[in-house]
């Protein structure tokens, strides 16, 4: 069932997200073609015959940056809108009567949403490579100023980084879900309440983490003086722990409301 839910999730959101991503890539390609016609990134600025082209490229670069901003905003807006309309508006009459458990519904929305978030970053990176490919290759260092040594600590740090980024990404999306779920409990001003709840919960977590850090400072000041305590691993581990806590809280709020407090009126 999870696979089928995800299939329709990608179908429903992809229709609007993919054109935005294609737009970013197209602007990058168009810019690159014009720059190449003008003799490449290094020279086309200098050639007086290409003055008008510099203006055109300038505009196109502006549109390209706007397209990137639009694609990133659209991704987040559609993730939020999809969750809200598919579960709490008219479509919810169908979604919520499918023989599917609440957990599967949440993951069926969360995984595609995370995929789109990652895809949006990949699209931006690919577009930059298309636009500046040659330049990046020219300036790519042949020798690094420091020696790269692959140690077991480095492997562990890489794994921790991957894990904490993934959990952080999921927790970030779940924060939207829990806020929307709490918002729809209200009789009126559902969206307004959702926004207030979103910032409220995030500030609450920020305050908790600040207190936790101060707690460490006050109760075991020697921890700060111990250089060993402040390596990459411990920082990633702390970030991972914080993300796990936030993600779990948001998940259980969403789950509880969808399971016990659904009120489609």
């Amino acid at each position, binding site marked *: 069932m999870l696979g089928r839910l995800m299939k*329709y999730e990608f179908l429903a959101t992809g*229709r609007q997200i993919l054109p935005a991503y294609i737009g970013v890539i197209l602007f990058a390609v168009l810019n690159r073609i014009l720059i190449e016609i003008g003799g490449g990134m290094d020279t086309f600025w200098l050639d007086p015959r290409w003055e008008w082209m510099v203006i055109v490229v300038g505009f196109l670069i502006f549109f390209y940056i706007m397209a990137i901003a639009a694609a990133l905003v659209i991704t987040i807006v559609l993730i939020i809108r999809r969750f809200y309309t598919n579960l709490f508006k*008219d479509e*919810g009459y169908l979604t919520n009567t499918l*023989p*599917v458990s609440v957990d599967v519904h949440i993951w069926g929305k969360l995984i595609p949403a995370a995929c789109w978030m990652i895809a949006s970053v990949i699209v931006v990176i690919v577009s930059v490579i298309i636009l500046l490919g040659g330049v990046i290759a020219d300036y790519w260092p042949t020798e690094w100023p420091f020696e790269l040594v692959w140690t077991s600590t480095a492997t562990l740090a890489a794994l921790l980084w991957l894990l904490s980024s993934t959990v952080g990404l999921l927790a970030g999306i779940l924060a939207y879900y829990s806020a929307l779920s709490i918002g729809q409990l209200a009789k009126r001003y559902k969206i307004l309440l959702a926004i207030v709840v979103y910032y409220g919960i995030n500030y609450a977590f920020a305050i908790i983490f600040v207190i936790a850090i101060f707690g460490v400072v006050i109760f075991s000041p020697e921890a700060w003086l111990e250089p060993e305590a402040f390596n990459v691993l411990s920082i990633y581990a702390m970030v991972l722990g914080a993300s796990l806590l936030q993600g779990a809280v948001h998940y259980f709020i969403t789950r509880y409301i969808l399971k016990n407090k*659904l*009120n489609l009126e």
Partner: protein
Amino acid sequence: MSLLLECRLLTKRYPLRLALNQVNLQLGKGKIVGLLGPNGSGKTTLIKLANGLLTPSGGHVLVNGQEPGVETKKVLAYLPERSYLPEWMTAGQALDYFYDFYENFNMAKAEDMLARLGIDKKDRIKTMSKGTREKVQLILVMSREADLYLLDEPIGGVDPAARDYILNTIINNYRENATVVISTHLIQDIEKVLDEVVFLNRGEISLHMTVDQVREERGMSVDALFREVFKC
């Protein structure tokens, strides 16, 4: 366990209104039941509670002896009083959607009904008229081989010719052991197909009897009885 739908002291309170007040109801298998009452009497609330779209303020609603959940949703086919299909889908995609999620969905039957109504599988829900959307939804719901059908105002928004088609679809497509609950205030149109009637008035059941009982004991049609009971 021969009860398909059971309400025990079922209560639903909205902030300013009591929609259902300690309703007790038992519906068995193999019947077509009219859930009748004026606007705002609690018909839709009762149906939504059985589907798990609302949570009761008190009491219980049981489908096949179970509280609403994954298992009850497998055997319950629900037609809401609104358009619930995603607008971006085509009729064909909507069929695939039901086929993907409901094991008891009969694809051949649905395709056949769609073709007989002249609805192209490539037509988008978005471009369909309200009446056509209602027909597509009814085809989807009645193509499920479910135990319990809860149809909320299935004939409310369509012309009289389409009403006959819809009623025929309902009568011809439910199985012997299944029960169909039709909520409406258009009683004349559906009276001839009903086995039982439940009158709902201001959140309470004021009458529950078979149509034969209504005719024999009260000596009048359901429509006439409704007009008498709910006289303004």
